[in-house]
């Protein structure tokens, strides 16, 4: 239960960090970025990860900002999850993220865990990747070839996998601020509070009167990566949020799902849960949309 030996670097600029990521270690092996350490350090201790070099990005200045400008909310990759949870700017501009974060682990985990770390780790059961996909967030990455922006739909590529190249650091996440009349909810079921969810649902809806004008739904825990429920979204737009519409949305989403069975839940149970949680999340999001109109 002790990490294997590695080389440790703590760069103080993005350029320096990228160089350390790009340069192969002398004796071979992986290079890993260390952010909040709440996923990486357990992997090191269990020796599921044995990188040759660790690049600790915590001493790089400028990655901890939260700002909203021109209708876009930008979070630096090193913003601690707890800081975002308590941020008035996040609560106003991105209520879905504010609703999702309290589901992550426990306070002491969120005090250290970062927004960027969770998204880069890309656990299919995690909340923030699901939120990013739901909102079509943009991930800003810096690498040897400079800066680029990756849309969420292209970012999550599979089991714990992302579009980030080995020499790239995720530096910021951007989402569009919500329009008036929008409500959001994150609903999930975990065996114990703080555990990774068996299934989670992110939902955001915009209402005009009682009619849904925009719907966004994404699910965690039902595939190797978070999944967008486009057919369920289409089943909601133009309708009022009543039992019939909720059923249509839940059915549309679950028809295409092929979740895996594991120790925590069977495939059939996950599918059932997805339907229940979609109804709950959309209903709660719609209630909040009415309150915010």
């Amino acid at each position, binding site marked *: *239960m*002790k*990490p*294997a*030996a*590695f*080389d*440790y670097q*703590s760069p103080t600029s993005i350029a320096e960090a990228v160089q350390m990521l790009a340069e192969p270690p002398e004796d071979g092996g992986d290079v890993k970025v*260390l952010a909040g*350490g*709440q996923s990486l*350090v*357990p992997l*090191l*201790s*269990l020796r599921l990860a044995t990188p040759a070099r*660790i690049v*600790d990005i*915590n001493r790089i200045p400028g990655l901890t900002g939260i700002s909203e400008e021109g209708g876009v909310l930008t979070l630096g990759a090193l913003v601690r999850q*707890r800081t975002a949870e*308590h941020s008035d700017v996040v609560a106003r501009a991105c209520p879905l993220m504010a609703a999702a974060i309290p589901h992550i*682990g*426990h*306070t*002491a*985990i969120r*005090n*250290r865990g970062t927004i960027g770390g969770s998204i880069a780790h890309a656990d299919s059961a995690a909340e923030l990747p699901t939120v990013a996909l739901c909102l079509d967030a943009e991930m800003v990455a810096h690498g040897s070839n400079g800066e680029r922006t990756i849309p969420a739909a292209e970012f999550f590529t599979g089991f714990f996998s992302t579009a980030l190249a080995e020499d790239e650091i995720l530096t910021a996440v951007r989402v569009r601020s919500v329009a008036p009349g929008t409500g959001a909810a994150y609903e999930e079921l975990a065996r*114990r*509070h*703080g555990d990774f969810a068996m299934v989670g649902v992110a939902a955001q809806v915009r209402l005009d009167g009682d009619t849904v004008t925009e719907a966004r739904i994404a699910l965690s825990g039902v595939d190797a990566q978070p999944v967008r429920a486009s057919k369920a979204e289409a089943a909601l737009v133009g309708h009022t949020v009543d039992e019939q519409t909720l059923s249509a949305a839940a059915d549309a989403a679950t028809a295409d799902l092929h979740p895996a069975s594991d120790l925590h839940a069977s495939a059939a149970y996950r599918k059932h849960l997805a339907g229940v949680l979609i109804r709950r999340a959309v209903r709660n999001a719609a209630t909040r949309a009415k309150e915010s109109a």
Partner: protein
Amino acid sequence: MNTREITVTVNGRRHTRTVEVRRTLADFLREDLGLTGTHLGCEHGVCGACTVIIDGVTARSCLQLAVQADGAEITTVEGVTLPDGELHPVQEALRDSHAFQCGFCTPGFVMAIYGMCEEKKAGKPVPCSRAELREELSGNICRCSGYQQIIDGAEAALAAAKEA
């Protein structure tokens, strides 16, 4: 061996030490500084026994490397006891509630509740109801007590902590 020199303030005392870069903060506190009040249950973040305060907030000392703590201020369970050796109100409240049996989990609970009390004193929102407290303390595992008395103690400690 891959080592670095670090300076860390623990319970108000500055320590400068050379540490192996793979050493966790928990092992540094226990083995290099001899502060064995911080307990290690799981060593991968799930039990909460190793909870300490790092720069004002609760954190798992098993999920941070000692090198990362260079320049940080840390409070461990040894540091919450009052200067005259009296127990801290959080410790008093847990004792009065009979909140432990073997005591292995206790340092972690003391630090988690201490962290909440400090946040309350700083005017931040903290859990109030028993249900919220249960949720908040779900990151700390106790194999003996059945939790009821720990929640009693936490409730009493939080009620006693006043906003400054």
